[in-house]
């Protein structure tokens, strides 16, 4: 078992990479102020995490924090390096990411379709919204026992839970977005002879898009949360499974590693959404860079 092997390598640890960041910033001469300011604004968000890691490393090094409670960051980094070398980390990350994205795609598309349909047609809204709101009020994680009975611990179980979890934020925000598109613009589109499809494509969908993005960002948070819980309880691969295996063998460094990777993946998803938002909502004054 490679996880047990990793544990023996924890002792000798090199300095962690993130600690370099604040040193680089303070080393700059004050002569080129604008560039310093640019660098400063870019790394500002990382100063606190870096200091925390330094402090944590120091406290671990001096023995204030016992290694079997919380291993030093260097030990976690080393465990991560070894897991990367053995290919295990990327395998589990890949499995988890694939599950997350598949669930997001399925639940997101269903939410989008229902949100648009119920936003546009009163009939569809009257007949489905009450049901959807009732289902929404059941915490989807409460379905885990039932889902295990239905699907066992196979992929379907995770897909089902993630899809169910991401469905509601996307549904509600899409519905809200479609319903609050400026009625004056819709009237303009009608008067200017837009067909129903053109009206949807050129007026309603772009008008609802900012709201849909809000839904997407809520959905991403729920997506990771659901996946972690589902993988921790019932899985035979993935990051949650890796963490639970490590717990059984008391590999605290791997457990911490899994938690940190969840944080990184969450941040990555957020960055990607922001980027997508910026690309799709260029017209929105909130997303226009002042120096144009």
């Amino acid at each position, binding site marked *: 078992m490679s996880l047990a092997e990793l544990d023996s390598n924890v002792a000798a640890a090199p300095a962690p990479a993130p600690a370099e960041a604040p040193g680089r910033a303070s080393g700059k001469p004050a002569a080129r102020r604008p560039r310093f300011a640019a660098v400063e604004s870019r790394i500002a968000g990382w100063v606190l995490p870096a200091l925390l890691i330094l402090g944590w490393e120091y406290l671990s090094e001096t023995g204030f924090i016992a290694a079997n409670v919380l291993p030093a960051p260097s030990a976690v980094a080393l465990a991560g390096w070894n897991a990367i070398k053995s290919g295990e980390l990327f395998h589990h990350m890949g499995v988890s990411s694939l599950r997350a994205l598949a669930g997001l795609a399925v639940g997101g598309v269903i939410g989008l379709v229902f949100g648009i349909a119920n936003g546009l047609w009163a009939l569809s809204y009257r007949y489905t919204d009450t049901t959807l709101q009732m289902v929404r009020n059941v915490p989807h994680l409460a379905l885990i026992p039932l889902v295990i009975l239905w699907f066992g611990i196979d992929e379907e179980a995770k897909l089902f839970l993630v899809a169910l979890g991401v469905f509601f934020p996307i549904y509600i925000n899409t519905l809200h977005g479609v319903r609050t598109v400026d009625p004056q*613009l819709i009237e303009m*589109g009608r008067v*200017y*002879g837009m067909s129903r499809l053109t009206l949807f494509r050129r*007026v309603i969908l*772009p008008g609802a*898009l900012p709201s849909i993005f809000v839904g997407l960002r809520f959905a991403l948070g729920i997506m990771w949360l659901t996946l972690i819980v589902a993988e921790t309880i019932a899985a035979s691969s993935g990051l949650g499974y890796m963490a639970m295996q490590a717990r059984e063998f008391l590999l605290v460094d791997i457990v911490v590693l899994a938690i940190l990777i969840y944080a990184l993946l969450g941040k990555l998803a957020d960055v990607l959404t922001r980027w997508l938002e910026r690309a799709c909502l260029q017209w*929105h*004054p909130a997303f*226009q860079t002042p120096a144009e």
Partner: protein
Amino acid sequence: MTAAPSPASFVTPAHGLGVRLEHLGKQFGAKRVLDHIDLAIPAGQFVAIVGKSGCGKSTLLRLVSGLDEPSSGRIVFDGAHDGEALRIMFQEPRLLPWARVLSNAEVGLPASVKGEQRHARAHAILAEVGLADRAGEWPSVLSGGQKQRVALARALASGPRLLALDEPLGALDALTRIEMQSLIERIWLEQRFTAILVTHDVSEALALADRVLLIDGGRVALDLDVPLPRPRQRGSAELARLEGRILDQLFAA
């Protein structure tokens, strides 16, 4: 439709569309907003409709442009009055915030115009309203007057035979408004479409229109020809006299 898109020929030579209103009435619930309006507007005429707020002048425009259905009577056009022949310009610019200026102007083009032709014609019409250099901008960076000029370009893009203007300058500052008035007058003189302008500003009505209609109590209270040469001298004695007459009538009731 296949004419080369040079700035001067972005529309087929337009001629106005005449309209006749016969016993036109409109009721909202028990409230009678318009009552038996009989009116003939000849092709190519510039008509201004003035009146106190809530007198039904905007309702009349919405009926003529087909946004609302009349409760009684009918509207007769002396030709086709589909979307391309009859355009409306609203009080708000109503530009699509997610479309560039050029693309907003293209909204007014008929669907039959495709591809490069679309861009070329939209460019030509933007040049006409003096915004050719802003074609690539988002509407949010334009001033109120510029937005309204894009809306005018959009309304004119299909070469309408009747243009309904629903207080399009109401939200602009005084100087921008005068600029826009000259722009509208210049384009109207070139294209000779029928123009129906609803406004609460009597001096604006007199600066632009061949004929001013005063609506009061759901009826035409005054139908006044303005036979003055263009461009009209702001603050001239004749304009002041006509303005006095309209205002007297407005407050006499």
